[in-house]
């Protein structure tokens, strides 16, 4: 079976994200005939030429206004692998939908309009990729037909975006000149862009690497639930990182209970005795302890931090601001806790990364902040760069996710709390 990779297409509004995807599908023969006919009919009724963006833009409002409102996912294959392509809306109003889409991807294509150049949402989306830990990025400079396939214009934009990406530690593996509308440099070499000797979009997709490596990180298994199966109490959850096997000595944090794994439980698989990152399993233990959702199963030699106080880089995506001093709900893996916003040490514009204010009173929609939280109860956390699953969190307001953050500099003593138990 082929491997599968999820890719998100991001960039400023109207720079051609949905059109690129539509073109990619069309030129690789990945669309059912009916779909092509349906799109042609709708285009005729709207008095438009064949609109490739309609492959992704399916809502009536999207088609009539010619914009993407919500993120969509679709599937397509090359000889090498299967791809899930995630379209993300470019409009500033729908940034939270873009984040929803991008948070599920392993790699990204950042699209820039050759005529308009790098814009506000280009930079904001790029920043969000960095925040989400997406380091595999290809830049595509689109609408080259509008600038007469000019090499000079291409180089100008290439330089500008590379400089911006460098600030957020992203090095694009390719910068490709394309025209999604005309189909130049999408699935074949373009005779109109002779000065460009590099690969096309389709070839570039296959250069992305499948993320892996969670297995190599330290064991973290957040307890999801406890089931009573016949006479056994089974702790269920997903191995987020590392590996485990029967007989391993483990620790439940934050309680610091130590015990040994007695069995790995998977339905209709009696011989199961090991599990790796990504697997949803059940476990039983040699000692009957107090098990509860939100506990984190680890191994003693590589422990996360147990703390009530932590600092995160937080992207805020709600019309209601985050206010200093207020209580909010924080969720990290299966942990949930009420937290007080102790300090908003920096408030930044997410499109320029300029610090707007230090020691701020609130964080507004689409701003990024360096925020210090204090939790009611002890939390088990990791640095995002070491174990992503326990280094990222969401903040809820009015029962909806309103912010997403990553934890960095956890070992910094000023914020570190009590350290590992």
């Amino acid at each position: 079976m082929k491997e599968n990779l999820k890719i998100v297409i991001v960039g400023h509004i109207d720079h051609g994200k949905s059109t690129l995807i539509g073109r990619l599908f069309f030129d690789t023969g990945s669309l059912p005939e009916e779909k092509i006919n349906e799109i042609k009919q709708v285009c005729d009724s709207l008095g438009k030429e064949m609109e490739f963006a309609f492959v992704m833009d399916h809502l009536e409002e999207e088609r009539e206004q010619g914009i993407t409102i919500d993120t969509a996912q679709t599937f397509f294959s090359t000889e090498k692998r299967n791809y899930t392509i995630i379209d993300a809306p470019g409009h500033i109003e729908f940034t939270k939908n873009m984040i929803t889409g991008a948070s599920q991807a392993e790699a990204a294509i950042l699209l820039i309009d050759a005529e308009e150049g790098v814009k506000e949402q280009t930079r904001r989306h790029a920043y969000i990729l960095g925040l989400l830990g997406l380091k595999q990025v290809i830049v595509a400079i689109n609408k080259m037909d509008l600038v007469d396939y000019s090499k000079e214009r291409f180089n100008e934009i290439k330089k500008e975006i590379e400089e911006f990406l460098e600030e957020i530690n992203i090095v694009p593996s390719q910068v490709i000149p394309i025209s999604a509308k005309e189909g130049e440099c999408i699935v074949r070499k373009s005779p109109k862009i002779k000065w460009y000797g590099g690969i096309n979009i389709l070839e570039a997709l296959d250069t992305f690497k499948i993320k892996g490596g969670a297995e190599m990180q330290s064991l973290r298994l957040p307890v999801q639930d406890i089931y009573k199966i016949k006479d056994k109490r089974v702790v269920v959850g997903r191995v987020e990182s590392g590996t485990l096997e029967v007989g391993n000595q483990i620790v439940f944090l934050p309680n610091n209970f130590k015990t040994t794994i007695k069995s790995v439980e998977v339905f209709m698989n009696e011989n199961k005795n090991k599990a790796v990152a990504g697997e949803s399993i059940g476990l039983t233990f040699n000692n009957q302890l107090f098990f509860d959702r939100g506990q984190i199963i680890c191994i003693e030699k590589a422990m996360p931090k147990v703390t009530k106080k932590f600092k995160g880089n937080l992207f805020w995506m709600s019309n209601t601001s985050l206010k200093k001093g207020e209580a909010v709900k924080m969720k990290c893996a299966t942990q949930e806790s009420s937290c007080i916003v102790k300090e908003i040490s920096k408030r930044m514009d997410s499109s320029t990364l300029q610090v707007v204010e230090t020691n701020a009173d609130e964080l507004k929609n689409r701003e990024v902040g360096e925020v210090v939280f204090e939790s009611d109860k002890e939390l088990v956390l990791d640095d995002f760069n070491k174990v992503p699953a326990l280094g990222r969190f969401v903040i809820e307001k009015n029962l909806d996710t309103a912010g997403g953050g990553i934890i960095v500099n956890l070992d910094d003593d000023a914020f570190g709390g009590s350290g590992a138990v």
Partner: protein
Amino acid sequence: MDYLDELESRSIYLIREAYKQFKDIAILWSIGKDSTVLLWLCKKAFFGKLPFPALHIDTSYKFPEIYEFRDKWAEKWGINLLVERNKDALEKGMGPHKDKLECCGQLKTEALKKAIGKHNFKALLLGIRRDEHGIRSKERFFSPRNREFQWDYKDQPPELWDQFKNKQEGEQHIRVHPLLDWTEQDVWRYIQRENIPVICLYFAKVGKRFRSIGCKTCCNPVDSKADTIAKIIEELKTTKVAERSGRAQDKERAYIMQKLRSLGYM
């Protein structure tokens, strides 16, 4: 882990999450291949025994094979099966000979509304997939439906890092979609690997088979010679025909699926 293992594991995580957060839940079992795979995954998630019921919304216009399959496997698997119909509408003569949008609305959506009210479900597990239909590609894993049962597709809650909406407000209910990431091919590969029983209608007889099933009156078979799971998987690699091409409700008018879904259709 291979790709099917990854899909399976993620789905089991989502199913367990839905049960943990809402407890009063049900799986919506249409008896088709997708919701049967979902039922299978629920069995795996809870080590063989579902801690919640399977709900079948019966329009009474389904294929006879559907009823037969449902009763046989519900008994074999020890499923707590709830069958609900919109009796009032049926008594008044609602059926596919009337307007199709209205028929789907009355016999499926309204019937489901009544069932949710009657049993007080806070969340439902559904086997929809993103690749089935453009409008389904925009769904979230945990998707709230408001009191009037509507889907506010223009303002969906953000969903990241497997943190989901875990509280329903007032009369809202949450639709949970554990198979959202699966494709039609993945479903068939998984059916093959796990040896999951499916209705015979999916397999070709005299040059035709059903790729998607629902009401007998509104489903047409597609041309096909695929009479085994292996042949279906081969066929799907090259087909240019859309999965739901035989489903009347998808094509009556432009955007009908969007309208049906925003009104609460499954």
